[in-house]
């Protein structure tokens, strides 16, 4: 428990410094155009990486195909402009239904 608390506090401190650094260094000055272009590209790359890591699971060896129908439902609803919250809830419900069906042995 102590190790976890120390780790959490250390992470909080790093988080605080990391988030303050940008504004402390730049203030109200805009980013140079090249830096802005890199910053604009980062979110998409990071989201793609987080998505892959999230789907592949622990050590990239824990992929569970039952999340795919839920992902498909969530994305489909988003293309129809439903709210993100509704999309995620619907995706969760779909995945839960698939797992329940598999656990019940009906598929």
């Amino acid at each position, binding site marked *: 428990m102590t190790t976890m608390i120390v780790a959490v506090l250390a992470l909080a401190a790093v988080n*605080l410094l990391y*988030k*303050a650094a*940008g*504004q402390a260094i730049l203030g109200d000055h805009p*980013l140079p155009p090249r830096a*802005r272009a890199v*910053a*604009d590209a980062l*979110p*998409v790359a990071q*989201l*793609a990486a*987080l*998505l892959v890591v*999230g*789907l592949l699971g622990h050590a990239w060896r824990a992929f*569970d195909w*039952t*999340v795919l129908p*839920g*992902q498909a439902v*969530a*994305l489909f609803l*988003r*293309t129809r402009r439903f709210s*993100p919250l509704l*999309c*995620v809830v619907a*995706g*969760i*419900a*779909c*995945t*839960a239904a698939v*797992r329940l069906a598999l656990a019940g042995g009906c598929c």
Partner: protein
Amino acid sequence: MQGQAIVDGSWAVAQRPDASFDRGAMFGATMVQWPAWVLGTAIGTLTEPGASVVEAPGLDLVFPAYFALLLYDARSRHDRGCCRSA
């Protein structure tokens, strides 16, 4: 101090269609999320639920689905030519 309010969901909420940022929306979104995060972490720490509590109802889909939606929205905004950094 304002930078401390930047978290994924708040940053996404703060983006306006014209690619500018609404700081008030970001601060408000963070203020709603912060107690939920703290409370959820405390509950998880105290109850130590097993993996089945998350996996059976499909809750492990929350982050992958949320990231997928953010990725879709980011690409949609980029295609419309309005993706800019804060």
